[in-house]
């Protein structure tokens, strides 16, 4: 079906537009303040007293990450910048060769970044450590507990304890891995691949999980509460892989919801309920309830693809941004 049925319940009238006006690549919450990451140079804070633009990079922003207290950004100016909830930013590092900072990660104050093949990590109170991956780094993710970093690269992903001298532990799978995430319980590692597929490892025994059937590269991954499901983009519907059992999705089919004839491009799971915000290539946003697949329309088709979705910690507010700089805050209370 092309269009969302006319009788679909809607929360569009609860949207408060935010004047951003520049392409958005991500959105995060620090407390109840929504922060939009622009494709170039700045963050836009949208609080109760209007918007504030904070310049953080002298060029393109390649990736951002947040742990709810701070936002880490990597830029093509070779800088890693950390910005707090008040909009105060510090440059953590400037690459000596001004290489692009391709990827960043943050967890409880520990931050990580990569430039080409080299990955770096810095504990909240500690020195910068570095390791060279076998090829250019495709993605970074901190383990939910402990100072441990997953590094996606060509032919697999490596798990690295930055404070331990030992070599990173390699989990092999042929092909180019371009994104990585840990399940919230830390038992599974999942990568997105150059091919339209995900690959997973059960870390206890390194058992492989192949998650295929996508029509496009999977660029957005989000865990539902408790890590029961992994919500993903990469198809014309929301695809959710079951991770509740100890075997994860091994031998199981994914749940397929919200089918349309346009691509899902961004997904963001609600922090407490089994609901996923789904952003489509045509600008539509649907809030989809797992279980019965009920849909609520949160945004009508627009001029550009949805490029950012984020929930606040209580899940009462969801924000969105688009590739052409439209943004909004939807209050569901």
């Amino acid at each position, binding site marked *: 079906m092309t269009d969302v049925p006319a009788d679909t319940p809607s929360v569009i009238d609860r949207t408060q537009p935010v004047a951003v006006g520049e392409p958005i690549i991500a959105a995060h919450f620090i407390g109840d303040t929504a922060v939009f990451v622009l494709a170039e140079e700045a963050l836009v804070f949208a609080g109760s007293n209007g918007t504030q633009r904070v310049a953080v990079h*002298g060029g393109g922003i390649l990736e951002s990450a947040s742990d709810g207290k701070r936002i880490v950004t990597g830029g093509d100016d070779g800088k890693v910048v950390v910005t707090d909830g008040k909009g105060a930013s510090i440059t953590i590092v400037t690459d000596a060769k001004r290489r692009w900072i391709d990827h960043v990660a943050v967890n409880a104050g520990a931050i990580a970044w990569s430039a080409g093949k080299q990955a770096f990590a810095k504990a909240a109170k500690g020195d910068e450590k570095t390791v060279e991956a076998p090829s250019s780094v495709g993605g970074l993710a901190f383990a939910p507990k402990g100072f441990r970093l997953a590094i996606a690269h060509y032919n697999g992903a490596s798990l690295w304890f930055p404070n331990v001298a030992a070599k990173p532990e390699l989990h092999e799978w042929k092909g180019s891995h371009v994104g990585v995430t840990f399940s919230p319980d830390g038992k599974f590692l999942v990568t997105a691949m150059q091919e339209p597929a995900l690959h997973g490892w059960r870390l206890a025994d390194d058992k492989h999980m192949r998650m295929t059937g996508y029509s496009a590269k999977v660029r957005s991954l989000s865990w539902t509460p408790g890590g029961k499901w992994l919500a993903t983009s990469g198809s014309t519907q929301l695809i959710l892989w079951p991770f509740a059992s100890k075997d994860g999705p091994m031998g199981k089919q994914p749940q397929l919801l919200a089918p349309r004839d346009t691509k899902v491009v961004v997904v963001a799971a609600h922090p407490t309920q089994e609901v996923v915000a789904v952003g489509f290539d045509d600008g539509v946003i649907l809030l989809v309830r797992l279980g019965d697949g009920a849909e609520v329309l949160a945004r009508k088709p627009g001029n550009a693809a949805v490029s950012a979705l984020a929930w606040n910690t209580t899940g009462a507010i969801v924000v969105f941004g688009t590739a052409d700089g439209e943004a909004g805050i939807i209050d569901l209370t």
Partner: protein
Amino acid sequence: MSDNSTAEAGSGKIPVTVLTGYLGAGKTTLLNRILSEPHGQKYAVIVNEFGEIGIDNDLVVGADEEIFEMNNGCICCTVRGDLIRIIEGLMRRKGKFDAIIVETTGLADPAPVAQTFFVDDDVKEKARLDAVVTVADALWLKDRLKDAPEAKNQIAFADVILLNKTDLVDEGGLREVEARIRAINPYAKIHRTERSNIALDKVLGQNAFDLDRILDIEPQFLKSGDDEGHSHGHDHHDHAHGHDHDHGGLKHYHDEDMQSMSLRTDKPLDPDKFLPWMQDLVAKDGPSILRCKGILSFKDDPDRFVLQGVHMILDGDHQRAWKDGEKRDSRLVFIGRELPQDRIREGFEACIAQ
């Protein structure tokens, strides 16, 4: 073809020029020229080695030339992983530049670079391959074609060839090396240059997908060869040292292992036969087909169909409607190694609609 380029411009895709050339041919000189001459265009440049470019430009990006195999079951399907990442990153700064130039190392095979623009959906959506430009050393190319397979690949892949350092070779020598180039790739445009000095509009914005122009350059010697019923079979000739014929003063070489062939028919093709045949051909013979290009007229189809391919990868689409009075014919060219020419010719002819 102005209507064609308008169509391309309308797509909003950023044109990408791939710059190749064997070590020392003059690539960096050309690149520095592109970056320093006043032409009102702004280029993002992906270089293989930082520092060689004497220009301070925040849109110069260092690349790692990381070549990845795709897990799609085709053995020659390799892409430049770093290029995917860099082009995506550059798109953050869309609007800050008009075109992208990718410089490759002197020993690079152009195939993975070209294939990147056909294989990765995100790259394909945002950028289009404008042309492969190869800088060749007029003095040394002949030797390199004998001992460096990379140099030969770069010539075979080229849409535009700069025959550089012409001041070091006399006219006879230049004609000789041009004939050698033509033996491998009769479809590329050749420009003679000294110190890579060339009007940039001959290198950039070529719209190589504007196949009309390229396919219209029916190389003289191919024509004369065909007119004389010249056999391209290999049974009559000793190819150990190449051989030459003389067609009205124009030297005509056969390369020992690389050939091109051109097919043409003014009868419409049956798309239900042609497309499966083409797919089957590249699936089987992809490793030996370096490039193919075509403009096709399908039966009962008002639109021109354009096609291009690299090894096993094919990319084709309806381009625009055939114009009134325009000659509706189908043209298809191949450049490759040990091409099964008879089989290709027979296969093509079997696709003519009944």
